[in-house]
């Protein structure tokens, strides 16, 4: 009886006891999965590169079967190979763009927080401006300016995704500037550079990492979107957006597998990385675990 009372009155403890995996273990498991998937798709993409573009006109429009798990398309190309190759292209672009974007975010965010009021005002204004135009319109403009193709998408996504992370980092550094230990370091006569690298960078780094990982799924989604609209990769490169754009022509005749599998695979990757970023954030910043 007494024990039952205890479990009722301390629900947090009871909950913790019921859970098998704690937050740290969960994060590790999710990350392991994400890394395995990343590795698998990259290797698979290299292996499937040949099959993904090989047409076999005797094997057109095959519904998913054991031989062709995801079916074949209008030119008899194996959809499984195309999906894997497409995902690996998308992931490559996503990773590149997200990393560039995150670096841009940390540079501009810290510049805003550290280089005085005028710089701060300018960068804050730039952030507001970027957030004021719908991403997709800006992406269309940038990728058009760069002549579409691989660089158009990558640069476009990299240039449009930094503002929100930049804002977070700016806020974080502004708070750090007021902390006792940074003030003490300043009073001790340490140079600004040393304070930034020694005292601020380690404190901001976790936020940066989480921001980077959460940027990544966004970057992939936008890459797929802009490629789908015809501003991204050319039709010879089977990115997910290209495959889906091609599949549109065959939807009206009921070839669902051409559109279903590539999209579902994309969602899988995006959701997994969202989960990884989210659980890493909960680990680093326990406040957000309270939901």
């Amino acid at each position, binding site marked *: 009886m007494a024990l039952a009372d205890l479990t009722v009155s301390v629900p947090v403890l009871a909950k913790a006891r019921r859970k098998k995996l704690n937050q740290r273990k969960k994060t590790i498991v999710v990350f392991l999965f994400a890394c395995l998937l990343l590795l698998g798709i990259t290797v698979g993409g290299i292996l499937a590169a040949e099959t993904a573009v090989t047409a076999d006109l005797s094997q057109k429009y095959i519904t998913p079967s054991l031989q062709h798990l995801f079916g074949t398309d209008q030119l008899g190309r194996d959809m499984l190979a195309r999906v894997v190759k497409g995902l690996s292209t998308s992931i490559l672009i996503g990773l590149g763009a997200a990393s560039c974007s995150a670096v841009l975010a940390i540079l501009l965010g810290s510049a805003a927080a550290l280089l005085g009021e005028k710089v701060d005002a300018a960068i804050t204004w730039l952030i507001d401006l970027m957030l004021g135009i719908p991403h997709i319109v800006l992406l269309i403009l940038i990728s058009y300016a760069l002549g579409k193709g691989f660089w158009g998408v990558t640069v476009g996504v990299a240039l449009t995704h930094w503002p929100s992370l930049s804002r977070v980092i700016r806020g974080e550094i502004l708070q750090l500037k007021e902390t006792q230990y940074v003030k003490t370091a300043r009073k001790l006569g340490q140079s600004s550079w040393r304070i930034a690298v020694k005292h601020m960078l380690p404190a901001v780094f976790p936020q940066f990492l989480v921001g980077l990982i959460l940027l990544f799924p966004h970057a992939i989604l936008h890459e797929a979107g802009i490629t789908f609209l015809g501003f991204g990769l050319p039709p010879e490169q089977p990115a997910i957006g290209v495959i889906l754009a091609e599949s549109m022509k065959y*939807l009206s005749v009921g070839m669902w597998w051409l559109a*279903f599998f590539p999209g579902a695979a994309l969602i899988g990757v995006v959701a997994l990385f969202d989960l990884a970023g989210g659980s890493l954030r909960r680990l680093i910043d326990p406040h957000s675990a309270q939901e």
Partner: protein
Amino acid sequence: MKRNRLLNFVGKQAAKLIILIVVISMVAFFLVAVSPIDPVQMNTGQAAYANMSLEKRAQLEEYWGVNTPVVEKYTNWAKDIIHGDWGTSLRFNQPVLSVIAERFTNSLLLMIVAWLFSGVFGLLLGIAAGVYRGKLVDKIIKGYALTLASTPTFWLGLLMLMIFAVWLSWFPFGFSTPIGVSAAEATLGQRLYHLILPALTLSIIGVANIALHTREKVIDIMESDFYLFALARGESRGEALRHHCLRNLLLPAMTLQFASISEIFGGSVLVEQVFSYPGLGQAAVSAGIGGDAALLVAIAIISACFVFCGNLIANILYGVVDPRIRRGHGLG
């Protein structure tokens, strides 16, 4: 005094909007100008371009303004726009303003329907999830919202087309009017019928954000003292929810909904492409592919103004909800 502050606020926002328009038009012009894509080649097609005589090519280049320097182009454009002339869309062969007016009404209809749908459903789902926190309903709604956050809008559109237009044939396969009927002749019923599927796609995605937000708010409120007190006074759960929860929820939810206009616009570009819906987003895509600078710039400006208005309304609503923000903003 009060009127002064209001004037001040309006003036500030107007100045912001004008600066925004000027900067965006410059950026857009610059980006279009540096592009290596040749609009003449894009619009005449590969074969026609190869067979074209040099004079014809030069004439077309003149027409598209390929050789005019950017600065000159921009100043010409800016001069015209002050007189209310937005230029001619070379792709559609119509004044830009008339293209935009037609496309924007279509898009606006789509976005408003989707916006209302997603707001209402998001709110209801959020409340349901919050009230039954930790139960099956909550888990389903949470899972739904989290999955949708990683779903590409256009893929969902393809799926909806596949299920509802191809398999079940409940809805038409895209477009805003029946085939062979012009927009002017179509009845409102026909237009709404064509609107349902794209709007539904947009709102299914839009629901996620607001549902999660509302869920958290509901949980906060249900743990608050005033909610407990209401129950203690003898109000039933439904009554307490209606009197103490809903009122606290509505304004923040509306604010969030206004602030998400940028996302709805972005989504509508993709959805319009999937459903061949003749809206602003589709016009932006064809303007971008065809190198139609005037139209592209105009669309960038219109979309930015649209988002600006949404954010402005959200800001004002924040002020209404939270006096601390209102004082900071200087709106009495």
